[in-house]
């Protein structure tokens, strides 16, 4: 394995990690108004991802910077080709990112409503655009012999790109729902599970089509296996949801996300961006890679810091593992939860009352 191959693997890991992590906070952002019926509940929903979303988004930053550093030509062609789409993506990420911080800062319903809106739209739009961009890598874009994009804005909307986007958005919603179920109690959790089941059914259908489509585009059978993993995983997820093992369900949707994004990169290799103009113009791992010295330096950096990052990010999830509930719905007064199923067995005890910071 050459250094460029290794770096293609690292880039794939970074983008997969991005979707596994930011995927659920996209989902929670998009679903928070559906799952939360009142301000307290919506606030709880947002706070389930509060400590994590920022760290999750860095996976995208590093995924992008990794491509810049390891495959400059890929970065240059891809980002300039998708110009207006990326502007849209940035708009989505900007609106979404500030929504978290701004939303709770003024206690006026209209203010909160506005930032809830930008959070929802941004959380849907971002995976949508990234999905199209990732799908396009495999579907192919009009790229000439100088690796320059020759198409227009509309050429970005390849059928496979759109389907990839649809699949990823659905997976994000499902992933968000299972995360919400894992971190909330009572009615919030029930509603998240109900939504998750609904989205899950559609997601499985989209995923089956995605898998078949991917294998046809890539024309390689063994790689299809990776993608096929995704479908059974989702079945497991559905079963797990019925069985009310929230941790297992979330692990299953995380695995489904890993398999989906991972398989896309696996199908892409050894290309990094297919040219629909001519296969001779394909951008590949070898013809876009940086020199060996730069890749060595970055390999060492990644070898040192990736384990550290995984360690402290995992620790953050351990620290904030407790379930959150709205102030009005506090245990242990069970009477309040009448009519709703009690916590499933094996679940950590419901959280003690969260203290709402004044102001």
């Amino acid at each position, binding site marked *: 394995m050459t250094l460029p191959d290794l770096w293609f693997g690292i880039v794939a890991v970074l983008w997969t990690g991005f979707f596994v992590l930011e995927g659920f906070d996209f989902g929670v952002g998009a679903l928070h108004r559906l799952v939360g019926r009142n301000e307290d509940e919506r606030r709880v929903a947002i706070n389930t991802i509060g*400590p994590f979303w920022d760290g999750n988004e860095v996976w995208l930053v590093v995924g992008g910077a990794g491509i810049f550093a390891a495959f*400059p030509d890929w970065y240059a062609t891809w980002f*300039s080709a998708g110009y207006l789409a990326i502007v849209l993506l940035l708009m989505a*990420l900007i609106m979404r990112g500030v929504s978290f911080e701004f*939303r709770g800062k003024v206690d006026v319903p209209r203010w909160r409503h506005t930032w809830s809106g930008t959070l929802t739209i941004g959380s849907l739009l971002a995976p949508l655009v990234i999905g199209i961009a990732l799908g396009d890598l495999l579907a192919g874009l009009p790229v000439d012999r100088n690796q320059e994009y020759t198409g227009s804005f509309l050429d970005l909307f390849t059928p496979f790109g759109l389907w990839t986007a649809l699949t990823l958005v659905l997976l994000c919603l499902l992933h968000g729902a299972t995360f919400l179920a894992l971190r909330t109690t009572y009615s919030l959790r029930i509603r998240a599970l109900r939504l998750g089941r609904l989205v899950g059914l559609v997601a499985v259908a989209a995923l089956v089509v995605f898998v078949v489509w991917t294998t046809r585009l890539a024309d390689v059978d063994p790689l299809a296996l990776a993608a096929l993993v995704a479908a059974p995983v989702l079945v497991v997820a559905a079963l797990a949801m019925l069985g009310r093992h929230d941790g297992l369900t979330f692990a299953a949707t995380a695995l489904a996300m890993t398999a989906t994004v991972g398989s896309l990169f696996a199908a892409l290799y050894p290309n990094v961006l297919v040219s629909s103009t001519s296969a001779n113009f394909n951008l590949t791992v070898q013809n876009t890679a940086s020199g060996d010295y730069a890749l060595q330096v970055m390999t060492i950096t990644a070898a040192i*810091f990736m384990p550290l990052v995984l360690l402290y990010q995992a620790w953050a999830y351990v620290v904030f593992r407790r379930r959150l509930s709205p102030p009005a719905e506090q245990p242990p007064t069970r009477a309040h939860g009448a009519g709703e199923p009690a916590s499933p067995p094996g679940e950590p005890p419901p959280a003690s009352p969260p203290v*709402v*910071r004044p102001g």
Partner: protein
Amino acid sequence: MDALDLARTQFAATSIYHFLFVPLTIGLAFLVAVLHTKWFRSGNPDHKRLTRFFGTLLLINVAVGVVTGLVQEFQFGMNWSAYSRFVGDVFGAPLAMEGLAAFFLESTFLGLWVFGWNVLPRRVHLLTVWLVAFGAALSAAFIMAANSWMQHPVGYTTDPATGRPQLSSIGDMFTNTIFVWAYVHVILASLLTGAMVMLAVSAWQLRRKAALFRTSATLSLVVLLPVSVLALMVGSRLGVEEARYQPMKIAAAEAQWTTCQPCSFSLFQIGGGNDDRTPTQLIEVPHLLSLLATGTWDGRVEGMDSVQNRYQQQYGPGDYVPNVFVQYWSMRVMAYLGSAVSLLALWGIWLAYRRKLATSRVFLVVASWAVVTPFLMNTAGWVLTENGRQPWLVQGLMTTADGVSTSVSTAEVAISLVVFLVLYAALGFVDAFLMLRYARRELDPAPPDEAPPDEEGAGEGSPALAY
């Protein structure tokens, strides 16, 4: 305007905007960490209230700083794809390292700090805020290494097959003399910005008789005085280094067309620019330019005409003179305001020493309004650095005109420019609104959510809904 002009405008506008927030958050993160440490040591709930107060101001700006940073990273590929292809081998590495080593650290621990009250053990919680401050400062190191490479490319060899620079020594990149001085300068400017904002807010609050803010006012002054003086000194040292590698930048900053020895420094001139070589000099200080540009009393400073001739022989025909008017005034705005901030800090320290800080109304009014100075200085500093590099994108290796994306149309750049301008204006409006609201708010009452006294037991609390 063609695509190149629009792309340049967009990069300049988004960078300047991004850098309004970056130094503020780097500096304020450090100061909030100090306040948090004070609370940790003293157990005084007032210190905690101050920590939370300034922590909120920090977070509002971090939000905008982070999201506008995304634009910066993506823009290289979007608008400057020819540049990205050309330099990615060298320039990409520090950006990727920044994410891996610093940005992950900063973002993850910020979440832990914000939501960690009453959840993390107190000692660990204190550590998280220091890691945020450390991560933010470390981030800047990688970005400055990348930028310094554009000012003074080192540690690379040219690939004979493609003609592109290839990284050959990462050590050289991080010992680049421009990087070392520019990085220290940026960190000092960041501390200055954070301290100035903390001072201004504290001064405003002291005018409203919120006596607790004496603590933060004193802290900010203790930081402000040394860093504002050091920033001037390090900045002038950076100027000497730049004069060696980018003589045009420094000559243009002094509107010095002809070579001189010794050289006097023009304090104020009327007119002056690329088409006006003989502006009216109002005040000149003999020998000062020699001192600033070379570090010696009688130093020789090469004029723009001479550099232009050399560059034409070296790189071929072309205009290698940047916009002189912009260069001259950005340097002066930065330096004069920097000196003014030092004087303000000195005044404040003297008042604090005489125990009159909270009652000197004139000082408090001036200090409140001085909040704008660091932002003007930071902007002027970057305009000086980046405008002075023109027409180069990478000094001596690639011009800005050659770096732009060829596959992106003028209309596309025009659309994105309008989108960013509108979006950033809206963000700026909301940020300013929230800052004014939260900076003028009364301190929270003594926190009701006091952590349990025994330290390790604090881990059993439950997280606040911070959002």
